[in-house]
């Protein structure tokens, strides 16, 4: 029960409460307004440009004309490589951290500390690192593979931490109850812990996906900016964000298509976020039912 004496509303306290409420509302409104403003700006400058042809055609005249077909394809490939590598690695590490090491364990602490540092490293550093490791040392050159692998390194910390938190949020009753029935660790993980951790994992994937699709600096030195349709993951490919950057900064008269491309990028982000949260709700519902 709330102690009414303690929370009693003297006039001064009432004023403070109202002030706090006002500040909170203001902050929320500002954040929403900024987002809507950006969206409106993108729509105003870019919406007229969007068409099926724009989405499928190759860029012409350095991107001033034509569309973004190959760029969409390259982006999809880069993200696919990134997630294909980062998901299993991230999930494995999260299981190691949450289930096999205790909170005080020295090794676990070391891994967690490294991840926190890694999460704060600027993406340009990932770009240089990815260039040195994947493009040069491993001989993958400027390629979709190099870009995807570099992005995987970048989103791993986010994925791992969300999955780990998801696993740690699963109540111990399930672990103890499962063990008391003679279930093996693997079965407990597979049937009880992972399904319960799925919502956390989805949050991680959405955050990681968002960071990856918006990435420019890490890709310039790794996947490159060739705007042709890629033939395989060994070809260089230009991601959406790099296309926007190039049109906006280097190509006079590229602004309209830069806006249109940015609009496509934001639309993809919104779509994936919505899809992921719907999927999360459904999985959670199904998990509870079946």
């Amino acid at each position, binding site marked *: 029960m709330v102690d009414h004496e303690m929370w009693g509303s003297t006039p001064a306290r009432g004023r403070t409460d109202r002030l706090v409420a006002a500040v909170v509302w203001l902050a929320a409104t500002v954040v929403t307004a900024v987002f809507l403003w950006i969206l409106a700006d993108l729509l105003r400058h870019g919406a007229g440009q969007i068409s099926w042809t724009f989405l499928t055609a190759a860029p012409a005249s350095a991107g001033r004309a034509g569309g973004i077909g190959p760029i969409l394809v390259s982006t999809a490939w880069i993200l696919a490589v990134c997630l294909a590598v980062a998901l299993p690695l991230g999930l494995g590490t999260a299981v190691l951290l949450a289930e096999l090491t205790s909170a005080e364990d020295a090794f676990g602490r070391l891994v967690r500390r490294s991840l926190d540092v890694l999460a704060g490293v600027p993406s340009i550093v990932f770009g240089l690192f990815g260039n040195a490791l994947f493009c040069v040392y491993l001989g993958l050159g400027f390629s979709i593979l190099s870009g995807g692998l570099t992005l995987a390194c970048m989103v791993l910390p986010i994925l791992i931490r969300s999955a780990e938190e998801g696993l740690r949020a699963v109540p111990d*009753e399930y672990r*103890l109850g499962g063990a*008391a029935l*003679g279930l*093996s660790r693997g079965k407990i993980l597979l*049937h009880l812990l992972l399904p319960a951790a799925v919502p956390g994992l989805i949050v991680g994937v959405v955050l990681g996906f968002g960071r990856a699709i918006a990435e420019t600096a890490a890709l310039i030195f790794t996947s490159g900016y060739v705007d042709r349709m890629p033939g395989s993951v060994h070809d260089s490919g230009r991601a959406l964000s790099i296309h926007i950057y190039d049109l906006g900064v280097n190509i006079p008269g590229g602004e309209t298509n830069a806006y249109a491309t940015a609009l496509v990028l934001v639309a993809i982000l919104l779509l994936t976020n919505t899809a992921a949260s719907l999927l999360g709700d459904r999985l959670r519902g199904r*998990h*509870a*039912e*079946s």
Partner: protein
Amino acid sequence: MKNAHPLVQTEALGLHYGRKPAFLDVSLAVPRGAITAVIGPSGCGKSSFLACINRLSDLLPRCRVEGSVRIGETEVFDPGTDVVALRRRVGMIFQKPNPFPLSIRRNLELPLKEHGMRGRAERDAVIERTLTDVGLWQEVHDRLDASALGLSGGQQQRLCLARALALEPEVVLLDEPCSALDPISSGVVEDLIVSLRGRYTVVVVTHNLAQARRIADRVAFFWVQDGAGRLIEEGEADQVFGDPRDELTAAYVGGARG
């Protein structure tokens, strides 16, 4: 009842969490087929004691066990002991009902599959039989595929009991199985525990002295002395309640003697 055929026997058993002992030096013989109640104030190591019998203590953080537990011919803490097989022989019910967030059927199927029951028809027969045994079949037979979390607390606890019994254990450990339930469900679960007598060797921790008196054949009384739980007195229920040998026991069961 004579304690001539103990199935579970502990010898100088103790358990520590880090440096702190939970209970020390417990030597107790649990007779086969009988109901043994463990009573005592909270914090005296009753749950920790149960956790030693099925080695759930392995999962408790910073926990160390000394002494020995024997079940039949098996040394529970022998490094060569197959823990999965042990936990199949020793079922456990927790204070808070803990059905998995799966369907009623999956809750029962999962452990059966793990222990090698491959045939679907065979599993279905076991599921029907154990649910009938705990009086749940009539209530749930038409919604086996609905979530177990949709059941009431009492039904959930009975499902957990069915889940444990489906593995045909020899020993059933119950840690305050009624204390999270309403009085009616509590009565239903209590009757079920009584129905286990003879078929299973039952060790039940309970706070409820009246309940211990109603259902137990033997009673073990724990109490905290010098910062650790100890077994103060153990014997036939009638003797412990009616004619306790120790002053501490007399004082503790005084309320129940009425």
